[in-house]
């Protein structure tokens, strides 16, 4: 099964995401921001990094890349999209996900292994987890504080759309300890932590992140 990873100018974790897809058993397909061709992939990952130098706002300029026009249309028809870190910021700027990611509360760039609870397992990216699973996945960002209006937060909570929540400590001042959310349909998921950096013990703190990638493979095979 073909899963695409978009490289924007300034993407950093695209090769890690491609590798995670391969280790999960999928066929990784590099996609390029300047083309609108999704190359017949069945799902797509927007990786971490600092696309366009984070100029203006994180993700604000990437949103208008030609590949995003194709992804936005596909996502509205149920195509699975995972945004990791900068990818999450791009999804918020694209209005595929609500809210925004702002400067961390203490202004520090936080790079640490973070404990998380998986809350929403009704998404193509998390259906391999059990509700309430505690996982350890790295976070590394300067603008990861999730902010949204009170009505949006209530809707996310009421609809069970909070995918990941920080536990033990809230590293950045995110409202409701939110580390990841989904859209109403569940096919679009954005997470600040980096599951692609927790896929094997040689290079990460755990193998807990690999389930994001095996989940989407199982979802597509089951269709």
């Amino acid at each position, binding site marked *: 099964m073909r899963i695409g990873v978009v490289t924007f100018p300034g993407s950093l974790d695209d090769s890690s995401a491609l590798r995670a897809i391969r280790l999960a058993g999928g066929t990784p397909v590099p996609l390029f921001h300047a083309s609108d061709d999704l190359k017949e992939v069945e799902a797509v990952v927007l990786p971490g990094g600092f696309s366009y130098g984070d100029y*203006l706002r994180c993700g604000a300029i990437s949103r*208008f890349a030609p590949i995003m026009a194709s992804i936005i249309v596909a996502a509205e028809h149920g195509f699975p999209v995972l945004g990791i870190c900068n990818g999450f910021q791009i999804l*918020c*700027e694209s209005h595929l996900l609500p*809210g*925004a990611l*702002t*400067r961390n509360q*203490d202004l520090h760039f936080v790079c640490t292994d973070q404990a998380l609870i998986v809350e929403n397992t009704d998404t193509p990216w998390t259906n391999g987890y059990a509700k309430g699973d505690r996982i350890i996945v790295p976070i590394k960002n300067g603008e990861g504080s999730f902010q949204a209006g009170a009505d949006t937060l209530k809707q996310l909570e009421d609809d069970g759309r909070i995918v990941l929540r920080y536990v033990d400590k809230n590293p950045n001042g995110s409202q409701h300890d939110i580390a990841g959310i989904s859209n109403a349909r569940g096919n679009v998921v954005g997470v600040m932590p980096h599951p692609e950096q927790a896929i094997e013990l040689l290079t990460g703190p755990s193998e807990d992140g690999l389930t994001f990638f095996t989940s989407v493979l199982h979802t597509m095979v089951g269709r």
Partner: protein
Amino acid sequence: MATIIVEVMLKPEILDPQGQAVASALPRLGFTFAKSVRQGKRFEIIVDGEPTAAQLAEVENAAEKLLSNPVIETYVVRVEK
């Protein structure tokens, strides 16, 4: 030639850690006047001649779509001569 100014500020209810950091640095330098500080962005857009109503409407549109994020920010458009 005129300059269209777009000022973008975080909404009052959104935490502004940069403004807070500036506010806490001021008294360390002996500046004790600030009760609080909020930090924003200013764009200077140069146009030929006097800006038309249509141009200003376009700038408003750009401010809404690109220069600000309406989820967390507000903007003001004005002309400087």
